[in-house]
């Protein structure tokens, strides 16, 4: 039986030759992403913005009456509602901002939600309420802080782990790759204005884990090759390591990709944002493992000696004592 080989044996792509342009591209992507976040802002869902979100399915329609809903809910006087398709064309999410100061009035927000639902149900009898979320401004603020904290803590913890298991240059390289992945994902959400919620933060943390998988597999091979080929120039050694692990990189990305695609197409609509973020992160993470994590090692001066135990003064004395030196 002939087996499928996605990457031919003895592939030798000169990835590192293009390290400067790609590194510049990465920096541009990071800066551009942050610019997009600052200019466009993220479309925070109720988790982070606070407010009232109602999700509905219009059971007897192909297409949800979005403009009609906007007008209807806008007419209730709570401010401009955000009405978006949510998954299927006949499903919508309606976000209503909470009036100033209402966070402190128990029940006021939920009353707004009930009013929105009742108003829509009256006008559109086929509307089925799928869900109804209320998050007060204070709780939303806490969610934001916790999310930022979790991202920073995860990034710091894994970078320290890599620093301990490898060398400091590797820790810094991994950290940079992570900053890249997180930034670009945020940029993507700023550009598309997809709803940014707690689930998306979960997705980003999953991406951090996944992208690191890639980085670590390449790093592990670099470490191995550094011990094996002591005289090889570093750029060449990095290329060799990336090429040697390329078959694995492609195969793993592909298996995860084919598992995610059905979830994007057939999966529950409320998971779409999360799965889209993970799918995007799959590509972003693979790219950063090769073009961010690798070249940084060159510029930070990793050498073959990094993994040879250094001889301390004490070792030296002992050697002299044993008459070996």
């Amino acid at each position, binding site marked *: 039986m002939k087996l499928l080989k996605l990457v031919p044996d003895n592939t030798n792509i000169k990835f590192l030759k293009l390290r400067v342009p790609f590194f510049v591209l990465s920096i541009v992507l990071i800066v551009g992403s942050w610019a997009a976040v600052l200019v466009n802002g993220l479309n925070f869902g109720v988790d982070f913005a606070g407010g009232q979100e109602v999700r509905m399915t219009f059971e007897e329609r192909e297409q949800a009456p979005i403009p009609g809903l906007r007008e209807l809910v806008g007419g209730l006087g709570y401010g401009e509602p955000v009405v978006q398709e949510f998954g299927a064309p006949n499903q919508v999410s309606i976000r209503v901002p909470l009036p100033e100061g209402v966070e402190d009035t128990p029940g006021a927000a939920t009353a707004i939600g009930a009013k929105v639902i009742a108003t829509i149900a009256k006008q559109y009898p086929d509307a089925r309420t799928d869900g109804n979320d209320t*998050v007060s401004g204070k709780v939303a603020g806490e969610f934001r802080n916790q999310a930022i904290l979790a991202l920073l803590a995860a990034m710091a913890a894994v970078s320290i782990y890599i620093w301990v298991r490898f060398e400091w240059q590797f820790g810094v390289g991994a950290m940079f790759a992570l900053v890249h992945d997180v930034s670009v994902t945020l940029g993507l959400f700023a550009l598309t204005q997809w709803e940014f919620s707690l689930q998306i*933060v979960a997705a980003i943390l999953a991406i951090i*884990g996944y992208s690191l998988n890639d980085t670590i597999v390449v790093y592990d091979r670099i470490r191995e090759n550094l011990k094996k080929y002591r005289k090889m120039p570093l750029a060449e050694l990095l290329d060799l390591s990336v090429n*040697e692990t390329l078959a694995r990189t492609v195969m793993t990305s*592909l298996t995860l990709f084919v598992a995610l695609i*059905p979830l994007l197409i057939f999966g529950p609509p409320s998971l779409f944002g999360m799965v889209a973020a993970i799918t995007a992160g799959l590509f972003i993470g693979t790219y950063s493992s090769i073009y961010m994590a690798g070249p940084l090692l060159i510029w930070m001066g990793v050498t073959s000696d990094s993994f040879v135990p250094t001889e301390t003064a004490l070792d030296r004395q002992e050697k002299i004592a044993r008459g070996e030196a």
Partner: protein
Amino acid sequence: MLEFPLWKKLWLWGVTLAFAVLSLPSLFNVSGLDWPAALPNPQVNLGLDLAGGSHLLLEAKADDVRVQRLTNMEETVRQLMRNAKPRIRIGDVSTANGQLSFMLNDAGDIDRARGLIEPVMQGATVTREWDLAVVDGQRIVLTQTDAGVDQAIDDAMVSATEVVRRRIDELGTREPTIIRQGDTRIVVQVPGLEDPDALRDLLGQTAQLEFKLVDLNALPENVQAGIAPAGSEIYPYAPGTPQSGGFEAVRRLGGIRGDSLTGAQASVDPQTGQNIVNITFDAQGGTKFAKLTTENVGKPFAIILDGQVLSAPNINEPILGGQARISGSFTAESANNLAISLRSGALPVPLAVVEERTVGPDLGADSIRKGLLAMGIGSLAVIALMVASYGRFGVYATAALVLNVLMLLGIMALGGFTLTLPGIAGFVITIGAAVDANVLINERIREERARGRKVIAAVETGYKEASRAIWDANLTNVISGLALFAFGSGPVKGFAVVLIIGIITSVFTGVTLTRMFVAGWLRRNRPADITI
């Protein structure tokens, strides 16, 4: 590495099958088949986003507790001074900035007053709950200590949690979760709830019931303007009552608090057809109520719930039997809610809903169906890819993958973990990423073969060299999973749980189990060459 003694094989199979079998009840349940009742039945809990239901986060405001403690202290002090023999006269009482201060009419009473107050400043615990200071020799200032306030908040939350539990139990819902969270919060999760509004109404009601005499001397125009005569205070009428929008002046003192109730039932007044709530006092409350009504026949008294007047009927005759009824323009539902609230006791502190998430039951079932479909298709695609790429080794990886999913489900059922909607995404990622270990190993074996190693040596090196990267990669994944678990709430936590358990089981099945499969085959067949 190819040595697998019998005991080790039995142990590995034992662990794998034990966990995999645990997944069966959950699988049966999802597929709509009946699991035989005689067998043990551990099941994966479905999160609210899959089962449908309501999640509420309730919060008490520390300020409310502060204010309430001050009010209680004021009442206590007034009573102590009044009951002192001879009576100690006080005036200029104020409760502001967390302090209770009052003036003694006679400076000579100061030591007696101190002696009376000091014992009540100390609570049941060793914490000092109040500071007492004497200003200008005639004014006593009581300041709440932070420790005292903290203690009071804690006490209030403990009993509030209990009251919430009793109220929800009255709704007759299945398996509600009620957990105190942090200092001032309570999480309430009620799966499969049909009517979240009822739940919210029920919990939003403090149910602090009071009976106070209407101040007949108050001038109506002053009352409407919010100006209370001395010794009285103004309460608004509750929305929905005929007098809604109006106000009532009631005497501050001499009323009865409804916290000595033993029962409350909603019913209908046979004469008027109105919805009413019948309440029963305990002996002490009944005596007080009898005294109040006997002394005030013919006068109106206000029935006040949570600071709003429900109604102010005339006392037609003394009410002696310890039973009373509350009228106030109820609907059948609101009468029932009030009865439940009164039965389960008043909340010691008002609770505000700061987060609410409700998912309709239809959506949950729909999500499960779609999630399973996606998982099925995804698994088939991954399996096809693995078998096409690695042949026999791909088949082993596939077997490990299936066992991995079953084990993951089994462990979740056993540990009582909750499967949420993002958790389904976690399953899919686990399926996609779990084969990573096998990909690493198989690619390495391929490489070693290409370098000319013999079959067994190549397989051995493949497993050994790949293990290091697998270990590092998965440990970092667990670290980010833990970060996710630590900060996540509800559904996101469910994702983290699947991710973390999935990483552990996938390393077990992907590395250890496949090695046993491969070793068994190599030992039986001793192939000179392998297709990989």
